[in-house]
């Protein structure tokens, strides 16, 4: 059994639902790597902050339901898988987007707290359904 507190597995989701960039960024290690689908890899807190700031210009997370969750703690690291049903709300135009996503997150016990060192996600939905948030963003841009 780990001597550390439990991995705060919902921290990223709570931060993204609240649109709280500082909370989100504080969840990551200084050298974190974040790999969102259909986008470039982000290295470090500043790039991650810029990505979330841009994301929240266009979208907010309406709600999420955790459908599967598994965490394996190995000393100073924890490996977490999560499956989620999520609703994303475009801020300027367009219908709600429903998506089924999975996350694979590596946590590191850093300075007395669990922080995210690696974070990746993708959708289980076919191309053109849940992932239409990218097309939606293009549409929103056209209409501004």
């Amino acid at each position, binding site marked *: 059994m780990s001597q550390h507190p439990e991995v705060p597995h919902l921290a990223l989701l709570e931060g993204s639902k609240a649109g709280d960039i500082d909370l989100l960024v504080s969840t990551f290690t200084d050298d974190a*790597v974040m790999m969102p689908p*259909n986008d470039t890899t982000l290295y470090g807190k500043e790039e991650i902050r810029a990505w979330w700031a841009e994301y929240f210009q266009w979208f907010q997370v309406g709600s999420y339901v955790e459908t*599967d969750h598994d965490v394996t703690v190995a000393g100073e*690291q924890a*490996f977490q898988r999560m499956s989620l049903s999520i609703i994303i709300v475009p801020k300027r135009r367009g219908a709600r987007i429903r998506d089924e996503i999975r996350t694979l997150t590596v946590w590191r016990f850093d300075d007395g707290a669990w922080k995210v060192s*690696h974070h990746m996600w993708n*959708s289980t939905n076919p*191309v053109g359904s849940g992932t239409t948030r990218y*097309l939606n963003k293009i549409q929103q841009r056209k209409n501004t």
Partner: protein
Amino acid sequence: MSIEAARQNDPVFINRQRFIDSLKAGDVEAVVSLTTPDVVIMSPNDSTLYGQDEFREWLGEYFLSFRFAAFTEPERNIVLNGDFGTETTTYMIAITPVGSRSRIRDDGRFLTIWKRQPDGEWKIWQMMWNSSKPIGIGTNRYMWRVMQKKPRAQRSSK
């Protein structure tokens, strides 16, 4: 760096190379042999695969439709922690749909968690990947497969 030096400093390196070579060869059993019995595979736009049998079936179905014409990983990083290795790689691939001369090119990333087995061998325990390209470019292999599954008459009527 020579392969022998890489093996000493990075015990996962050789199996990563075997993984890529096996995918390029379309060798299902060789790929599956590099995974743990409880492997979890999370490929984009597809359901999660639990265990070697589900992964074997998925690979078998995949290779019915596609072959890798090229597969390179220009960037790779690994963090070792006891019996676990956290590996990030970037990939550049060219996929040839079976029966077609066209090629689908994609760039993306793998996040792979390796786990050292009791016999000392490092195997893939959890793996996810996604494309770094915009939707409709690299990821159109899924659309290609959907079209292949539709009856020919239905396709030609579009």
